[in-house]
């Protein structure tokens, strides 16, 4: 039997929602569940209304789901707001000393589970956040969790804080457990023995960081900006182990500038930000492009324009990435769709940037960056090798030699005979600028032509290395769903649910935005019956992008731009609307 549960913690900033959500996700993972967690929050440090929703299943988890089975209300303020979000068959856990659900007019048929969390906690310690652990104890009864495993996670989390903290937490856990047992709380699943979990539980940003580390990342620079900042946090924490440089800079221009300097020297380098910082970086991204310096730039998209909604998700920077910086240069753009794929994209981006001496842009979105998910154990061991770096050049070394693939051998500063000049201006093979005394001379015109071609044809060779898009699911379905970025698995869930209703749909997911698999994507779309493009923006950027590249105009579109991730039910209704199914 498949077990599948959705738990939603609702609180304010300052309630410890993030740590409690992460902790409970880890507890469920320890019980060998597949887990996906995502928090919906506001740009405030104290107060406000936040949710942390966790879905756990013995089956694959494709989305955080919609209606919560178990809801934990952490204060009166949020309980009031949450009323409209409650579905009728939910179990609602709340502190009845502070919250009166009748007064708040909660629906009649919900299962109310009052528990005096604060009062129980007061007997144990002054630490307020401990009430969350009391709650865990109580939920454990509902889900049939193994006390030993829950304690194991608590120990791993708080072990360094000393025995007293550990035992206080254990006591809180036991009191919650006892209260639920004594008050005959419903038991959803019976207690049983769980197999040891082998999986990892990790966020999109962390998985991406691990991918880059695995590919030999030695330098990362950034300026704090949600939702990219946690990459810096993770790398900084482990910098002593990794022997790398992680640099917080004065602004995003300096962040990309430093990464370029480090990469020019031979260190595999990356920088990361969100749309606003990416805007500042654009001029130097173009410079890395013309100077052929390997560079990885991460843009984790959030709701724009401008400051937009800092803590909300969106996929509206596609054209910003595609059109980044003035002029034309080869830019590789990849959009990972899941935590697991973020890891692989981290590897590929670092590798391709050095192999082809190009800029690789990784387009994440907040929903992927910040989701926490269980994935198979990652293998970080790789045989990394260096590409096109000359250690012993002769005296006639030429940096920008025109080659078939467009890639010319480079030397790293410090190498004898390897000295060369490069600049942000167009140049000849030797590196001499074509912008000053050589500009416009009859003999330099063909050089300019060849230099542009040399750089641009790298994309042809890169395209051959990239995984080709394929249709997921059955053939000849009445509808094909097109997605990109983090919506991939939400669409998968919709397909799965549609199937149950007897409606067949398949999926075309676009991972590689540039270079683009024009031929393959055209063929797939031409063969499709109805096509529905699903994306998190207002204007339909992927829809327009596909039309620009293939000429194919996707007729049906589902777009969401309110800052929250698209949910399967939206997709299902849209599919029914397109197929005219009641």
């Amino acid at each position: 039997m498949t077990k599948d549960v959705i738990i939603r913690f609702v609180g304010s900033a300052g309630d410890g929602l993030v740590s409690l959500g992460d902790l409970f996700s880890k507890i469920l993972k320890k019980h060998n569940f597949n887990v996906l967690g995502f928090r919906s929050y506001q740009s405030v440090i104290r107060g406000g209304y936040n949710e942390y929703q966790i879905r756990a299943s013995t089956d694959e988890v494709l989305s955080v789901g919609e209606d919560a089975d178990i809801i934990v209300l952490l204060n009166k303020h949020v309980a009031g707001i949450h009323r409209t979000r409650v579905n009728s068959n939910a179990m609602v856990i709340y502190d009845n000393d502070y919250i009166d659900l009748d007064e708040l007019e909660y629906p009649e048929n919900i299962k109310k589970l009052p528990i005096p969390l604060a009062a129980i906690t007061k007997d144990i310690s002054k630490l307020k956040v401990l009430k969350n652990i009391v709650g865990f104890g109580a939920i454990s009864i509902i889900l049939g969790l193994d006390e030993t495993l829950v304690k194991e996670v608590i120990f791993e989390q708080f072990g360094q804080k000393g025995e007293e903290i550990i035992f206080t937490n254990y006591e809180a856990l036991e009191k919650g457990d006892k209260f639920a047992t004594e008050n005959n709380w419903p038991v959803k699943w019976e207690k049983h023995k769980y197999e040891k979990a082998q999986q990892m539980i990790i966020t999109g940003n962390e998985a991406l960081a691990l991918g880059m580390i695995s590919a030999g990342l030695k330098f990362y620079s950034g300026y704090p900006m949600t939702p990219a900042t946690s990459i810096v946090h993770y790398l900084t924490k482990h910098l002593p182990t990794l022997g790398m440089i992680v640099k917080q800079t004065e602004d995003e221009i300096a962040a990309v500038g430093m990464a370029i300097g480090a990469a020019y020297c031979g260190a595999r380098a990356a920088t990361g930000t969100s749309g606003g910082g990416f805007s500042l970086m654009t001029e130097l991204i173009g410079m890395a492009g013309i100077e052929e310096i390997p560079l990885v730039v991460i843009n984790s998209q959030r709701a724009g324009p401008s400051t937009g909604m800092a803590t909300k998700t969106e996929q509206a920077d596609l054209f910003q990435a595609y059109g980044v910086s003035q002029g034309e240069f080869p830019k590789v753009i990849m959009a990972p769709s899941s935590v697991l794929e973020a890891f692989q994209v981290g590897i590929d981006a670092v590798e391709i940037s050095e192999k082809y001496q190009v800029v690789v842009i990784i387009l994440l979105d907040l929903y992927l960056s910040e989701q926490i998910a269980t994935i198979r154990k990652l293998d970080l061991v790789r045989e990394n090798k260096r590409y096109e770096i000359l250690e012993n050049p002769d005296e006639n070394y030429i940096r920008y030699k025109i080659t078939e693939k467009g890639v010319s051998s480079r030397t790293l500063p410090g190498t004898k005979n390897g000295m060369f000049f490069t600049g942000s201006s167009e140049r000849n093979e030797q590196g001499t600028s074509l912008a000053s005394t050589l500009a416009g001379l009859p003999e330099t015109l063909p050089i300019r032509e060849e230099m542009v071609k040399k750089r641009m044809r790298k994309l042809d060779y890169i395209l051959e290395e990239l995984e080709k898009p394929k249709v997921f699911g059955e053939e000849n379905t009445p509808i094909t769903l097109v997605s990109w970025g983090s919506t991939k698995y939400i669409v998968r869930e919709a397909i799965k649910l549609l199937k149950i209703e007897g409606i067949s749909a398949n999926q075309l997911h676009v991972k590689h935005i540039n270079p683009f698999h024009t031929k393959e994507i055209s063929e797939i779309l031409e063969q499709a019956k109805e096509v529905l493009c699903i994306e998190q923006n207002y204007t339909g950027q992927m829809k327009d992008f596909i039309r620009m590249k293939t000429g194919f105009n996707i007729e049906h579109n589902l777009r969401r731009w309110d800052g929250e991730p698209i949910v399967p039910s939206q997709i299902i209704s849209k599919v029914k609307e397109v197929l005219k199914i009641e």
Partner: protein
Amino acid sequence: MSDDFNFVIKDYESNFKPTWCPGCGNFSQWRAIRQALIELEIPPEEVVAVSGIGCSSHMPNFLKVYGLQTLHGRGIPVATGIRLANPELTVLVYAGDGDIYGIGGNHFLHACRRNVDIISIVSNNFVYGLTTGQASPTTPVGTTTRTTPRGSIENPINPIAVALSAGATFVARGFSGDLKHLTYVIKEAIDHRGFAFVDIYSPCITFNRNQTFNYFREKVYKVEETEHDKEDFYAALDLSNQRFMKDNLPIGIFYQIEHKTTYEERDFTLNQGIIPAHASLDITKEQIEAITKEFY
């Protein structure tokens, strides 16, 4: 000079001849940089010359070292990245007043406080030359330029005072008209442990009729020939506050302290002698375990 160092001025000179106007102040800086590198016995392959955009920023074109011209104002961050990735290199940033004090001003402030061991040389001609003569951050009040036809109404920046207050550990000024002294200042700057900043009075012979070679020749005097104590912060600050149009103008090393640790010395990784540019790309089982433990 040691026997095995036999590089000469020509060895630091690229095949591309300078494109500056004949008589430009940048020529003597071109010479002074090369001379200083020879005197310090730094071979060309260990030098990276980074620049921005502007007349002076063409410098790396004319040097046979690792030359990297970046964008307007962005020499400092790129140079910082180079130095942090490979602290064995001598990293020079060479750019103009518009570049470092204007569009790149933010980076300049942070380079001063950060104390990464790079050298920032500013060819200060009080005007935008390459764009044919507009006001720059150092243009004195009242100066007529193409963007200030009724005279500049903005107060100019005082680069020496800014560098001092931002925490730079080496602050100096040179004059293009005194090659010997300029070479000395640049040499000391390169030799300095930590961020070194040199502002150079470098007349633009085409677009600046006010701050000419003759103007400076009459006014400059060397602080080395006075009682000035270069370790005295407040004395340096006083010296930087000479009224530009009225007083005599001190050149030389205003301020230098060696006791402040550099960024490289404070950085956890660099302090262990790791050179990120050349470090092994492999990751060990122990490293993997340490960085992934939290995910299980």
